[in-house]
Structure formats: C-alpha cells, structure tokens
C-alpha cells in the first residue's frame, strides 16, 4: 500500500500510458501500411516489440471489423481508433510524468482531474473488449495490450485518488489536533486549468487523426478496377438469397468453409449492408472433391456444405449462415472425412437435405456454379464480390469495404 504522498500511482500510470502508446502505435502502423491496398503482415502479440506476423487471425479480424475505425464512408478504411488511443495515451504520458515529477507539489485538482479522466481509456477498452468477445468472438493480442495498458493507467489514477483522500483525511485530523499548525497543503489552481487540460487532451487526440485524414492517398481511381463478370448466361441453379430491403444487385462467389468469406459475411451483416443487396450467390467451394481446379482440398468438406445450401431452397441463406456460424466445427469435421461433415448437415437440417446433397442433381447444380466461375474467368479465390458486374478488388472487401460501397453503391450504406 502506498503512502499518501507516494509517487507509485503516477509511476504505474506512466508505465501504463507508455505501453498504451506502444501498442496503439503498432495498431496504427498496421492500419496505415494497408493504405497501399496490399496485404501486409501485422503486429499480433502482447509482448512489446514482437515482430510482425502473417498469422494472427484474431488481430486481422479485429482490424477488418467495422469497429476498428470511424468515418469509414468518408475515408478508405476510415480513421483507425487506435490513432485516437495513441494521442490520448501521449497526453496521459505527459500528465502522469508531471504528477511523478511534481509529487506532493501537484495541485489537488490535477490529481482529481487525472483520477477521473484516466478512467476513460479503461471504459473504452472494456467497451471494445465486450465487442470483441460478443461480435467478433475473439480478442486480438495487440488490442489486449491496449486493454492492459488502460488498466494500469486506471489503476495508477485510482491509487492517486485514494492517496489524495487519505492525505486530506490526515490533514483534517492534524488540523483538529493542532489547530495553530498549518498543514502542508497541496497548491490550488484556478478552475481554468482542468479546462485547459481537457483542451490539451482533445488536441492530442484529434490532431493525429486530422493529419492522417489529410495525408492518406486517394483511393477513388482504384475502385472497381479489378475486372468484372463477362456477358455469359447465368445458370438457373444460381441462388437468389432473400434479403430485407434489396436495393442493389450483387453477385457473390463464396465458399461456406472459407474463413475470409465468413468474416466478409459477418462484416456485411454488422455494417447493415447485406440486407440491402439483392444477392446472386454462386457456390465456389475450394475443395477438390467437386472442384477440379484444385489438386488438394483447401477447405475439405465444403462441397458437401455447398450442395446442402443448394438443396435448401428458400432456406439457402439460413444454411449458409449456419455454415458460417459453425465453421470451426464444420472445418474440423471436414478434415475427418465426408461422413463426419454429412453427419453435421443431417443433424441440423434433416434427412431430406442430406439426401439431396448426396444426389446427382445437387452435384449437377454445383457443377453449373463452378462452370459459371470458369466462364467468367474469375480468380481462384473467395470471396469475390461483383456489383452490377463490376468486381470489388480484394482490398475493398476488407478495410475499404464501407468506403467502396459508399462510392460505388451509395444507396447500400444509407
């Protein structure tokens, strides 16, 4: 337990703030690297200074999620919230350093202000942690670094507040016992000071974001320049999924066991964009059981699930979304063999869909989907998104999704 005038709380807050700056810097750097529309390795470690990695699905999922940035419609990728965190932590570095150096001479208002305002990063972290767990189902380790930093900062601030109260209580007792002796009171500052500190916090938080927004490259010339669908006949077996308020035609090539498709679909739902599409769904399973374009199955079992989707009729969307929701378990089952994954399909959707998915008719339909992909000469990857026949570049389906949609189909983001 620290003494009333101990510098330990400020030191804890300073360490937390410095770590916060570090982790937020990694996160911002990862984000800004992707402004060149290429795929980069990212930081994904709780250990400060750990190198970038091509792994780290949770960190990438967080980065691509709708919650990683604001103003995504106005700027390609939006303004990363880690940038605001960086600025705020810099302010807290300065403030906690001041409290550390000033010690007992720090004004009471400074400690009170710090005690309250330094809790906001923790509040923001708790909010983001909840979103990560509830919406994304995972926690990125770099984000966890920021959450830990916020906790340290808040701990320092609360300890400082507690010490302030303890000191005030001690002063009160001393004044009662020896009324003629003046206690070593902390200095007072005018009420204007907290306002000035708030202003400084605002400047620290907003200026980097403003600079980011004004320095980022213009992505408009690159949107929709990645090819398109050819004028080939659409097989009748292509799926037309039901959505709530369709205002924009879209053709989607998806694989039910592809993690990127799953993330994309969830992103579309979270951004309230999927239900504004009138989607034609082309099943494009990357599984050599039915897809002759692969020598080895990339997503074993996805042909089985794709056929089940095709057999589901009006429930096609439900089966597809079930496949996305249950993707980790289905992927494991797919690796165990066809029987295991068929068992999961049968258990959830019943014998009629299972039998249908084994039929020649379902295979024929799926084959038509695959030939439709060939006829259009599309890339051997999923997902692929075409709006009115114009293809979204891959980078425009992740962090640039909302901006691209706002540019090419503004009615979808309204």
């Amino acid at each position, binding site marked *: 337990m620290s003494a009333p005038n101990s510098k330990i709380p400020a030191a804890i807050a300073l360490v937390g703030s410095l770590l916060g*700056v570090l982790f937020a*810097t990694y996160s*911002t*750097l990862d984000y*800004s*690297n*992707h*402004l*060149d*529309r*290429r795929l980069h390795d990212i930081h994904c470690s709780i250990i400060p200074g750990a190198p970038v990695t091509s792994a780290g699905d949770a960190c990438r999922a967080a980065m691509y999620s709708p919650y990683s940035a604001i103003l995504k419609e106005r700027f390609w990728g939006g303004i990363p919230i880690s*940038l605001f965190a*960086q*600025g705020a932590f*810099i*302010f807290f*570095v*300065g*403030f906690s*350093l*001041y409290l550390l*150096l*000033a010690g007992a*001479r*720090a*004004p009471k208002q400074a400690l009170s202000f710090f005690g309250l305002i330094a809790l906001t990063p923790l509040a923001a972290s708790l909010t983001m942690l909840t979103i990560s767990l509830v919406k994304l189902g995972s926690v990125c380790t770099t984000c966890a670094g920021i959450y830990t930093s916020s906790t340290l900062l808040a701990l320092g601030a609360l300890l400082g507040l507690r010490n302030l109260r303890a000191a005030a209580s001690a002063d009160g007792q001393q004044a009662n016992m020896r009324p003629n002796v*003046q206690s070593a*009171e902390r*200095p*007072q*500052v005018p009420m204007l000071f907290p306002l000035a500190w708030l202003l*400084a916090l605002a*400047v*620290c938080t907003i*200026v*980097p974001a403003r*600079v*980011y927004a004004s*320095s*980022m*490259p213009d*992505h408009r010339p*690159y949107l929709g320049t990645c090819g398109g669908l050819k004028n080939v*006949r659409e097989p*009748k077996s292509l799926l037309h999924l039901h959505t709530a308020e369709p205002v924009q035609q879209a053709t989607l090539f998806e694989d039910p066991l592809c993690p990127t498709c799953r993330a994309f679909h969830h992103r579309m739902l979270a951004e309230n964009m999927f239900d504004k599409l009138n989607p034609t769904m082309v099943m*494009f399973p990357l599984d050599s059981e039915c897809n*002759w*374009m692969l020598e080895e199955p990339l997503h074993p079992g996805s042909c089985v699930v794709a056929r089940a989707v095709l057999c589901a009729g009006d429930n096609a969307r439900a089966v597809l979304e079930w496949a996305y929701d249950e993707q980790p378990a289905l992927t494991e089952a797919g690796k165990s063999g066809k029987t295991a994954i068929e068992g999961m399909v049968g258990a959830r959707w019943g014998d009629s869909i299972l039998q249908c998915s084994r039929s020649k008719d379902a295979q*024929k339909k799926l*084959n038509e989907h*695959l*030939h439709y*992909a*060939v006829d*259009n*000469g*599309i*890339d*051997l*990857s999923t997902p692929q998104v075409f709006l009115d026949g114009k293809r979204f570049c891959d980078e425009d389906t992740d962090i640039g999704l909302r901006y691209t949609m706002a540019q090419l189909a503004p009615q979808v983001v309204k």
Partner: protein
Amino acid sequence: MNASAQNSNVSGSNWLPSSIAAGVTVALLTALTLSVRSNCVAAGERLTTPDVAKPKVATAEDAEAKYCTPQFKDVLQRVLHSCGLMNENSRRGCKPADVKTFASISDEDFNALFRPLKDRGGVVLFETGKDDLDEAARKLIDERWEDRRGARYFLVVGRASTTGSTEKNRALSHRRANSVLFRVKELTPDDPDIENKVGLLWLGSEFAQLDEKEFCAWPNSGAPTDQAGAQGDKVAAKGAEKCDDKAINQSAFASWVDCRL
C-alpha cells in the same frame, strides 16, 4: 496562505515538472503526427508506383486431365477449329475428308488418342442402317452428359460399318452423330451455348474404324449400364449376334473431354 500566494506557489515551484511534462507531450505528439503523415505518404507512393507486382492469383479454368497430351490437344484443337466448334458463324461438324486433312494423323493414332476416354465416354450402338436411339442409348448419353465435371467440350464421333456405299455411310454416320446431339439438346433445352459445347465428327466408314478386339470392351449402350466398361465385358451390338468389327462401328462415341484448349 491566500489565493494569490498559492498561485504564486504553483507557478513558482511547479514550473519545472510541468514544463518537462509539456515538453515531453509536445515532442511525442509531434513525433506521432510526423510518423502518421510519413506512413500515409509512403503508402500513397507505394500505391502509385508499386515496387512489387501484386501476386498473381490463378483463375478458374476448365479441367485438364493427364490424357491431354500435346498431341491429343493438337489433334483436338485442329478438329474443333475445323469443325466449327471454336469459330463463330462457321459450319458445324466435320466430315471424314475434313478430319483426314486437319487431324493429319493415321487411323490407328487417331483412335489411340481416345483410349484414355474409355471410362469417361460411351459407345452408342445402332442397328444396321439405323440412326435412332433406343432406351439404353438414351440412358447412356444422359449419364455421360450429366457427368460433366470440369470439361468444356463434349465430343461425338459418329461411324458406320463398311457395309454399303461410302456416300451412304458418310450420311449415316452424320445422322448418328446428330442423334446424340439432339438428345443432348433435349437434356439442356435452355442452353443457347450448347452448339459451342458439342463437337461433332462423322467418319463414315472411311477413317479410324474401331477394332472390335479393343473397343467391344468399352462401355456401350448394349450393356447394362452398371456393368458397362468392365474389362472383357464384350456385348453384342444392336441386331448383331456378337460384337465384331461391323457392330462396333455402327456407333457414335460420346464423351466429355477434360482438356483446356
């Protein structure tokens, strides 16, 4: 101590910590701002003048089976080009003289090319002088047509036995190939692209006659479908007591071809 004295205390005793803290904050903020700007500008430069080409992604393509040897593809391409399949607005199908000219290959070598298609295709058998399909023939065509997988072209090669005149046999083999095409059109009534999928050759009795020793063992419409293709499963052609050179050439061979051209 009054307020002014306290303020004086603040400004007098706290200026050093506050100056250091303010200096550190401004320095960090400046560094952050410059770094953000520099990263954004660098990304913009990489975008406009990429130093590394984007990795190429494979595109969706038709199947390419092992039997698609350069020689096989060469012959197939010549045949398909010459028979109007790969050229718009040209006539359809190939008569024996065309095949001889464009394939530039001996009878034996021509038939050898199709050997890998033994289990992929099927031989539709006809009665002597006839070109109509019976139930078994339709079933065989239906099964082969449905089993498309990744193939782009469906090849039909009509033949006639040596019985009768050359001219009659040319016409007969043409009608036999067409019978298969018409059945395929019945199966896919709303595919306007069907003409670009099905390649027709009719060889009459002049070119690449089938040898009964080998080809009577191929899956054919004279055999129960589930037994078709079994080794040594010689089945009599329609109207013939046994499968011989005559019976096996009263036929149309139909198969998807898993080659990219």
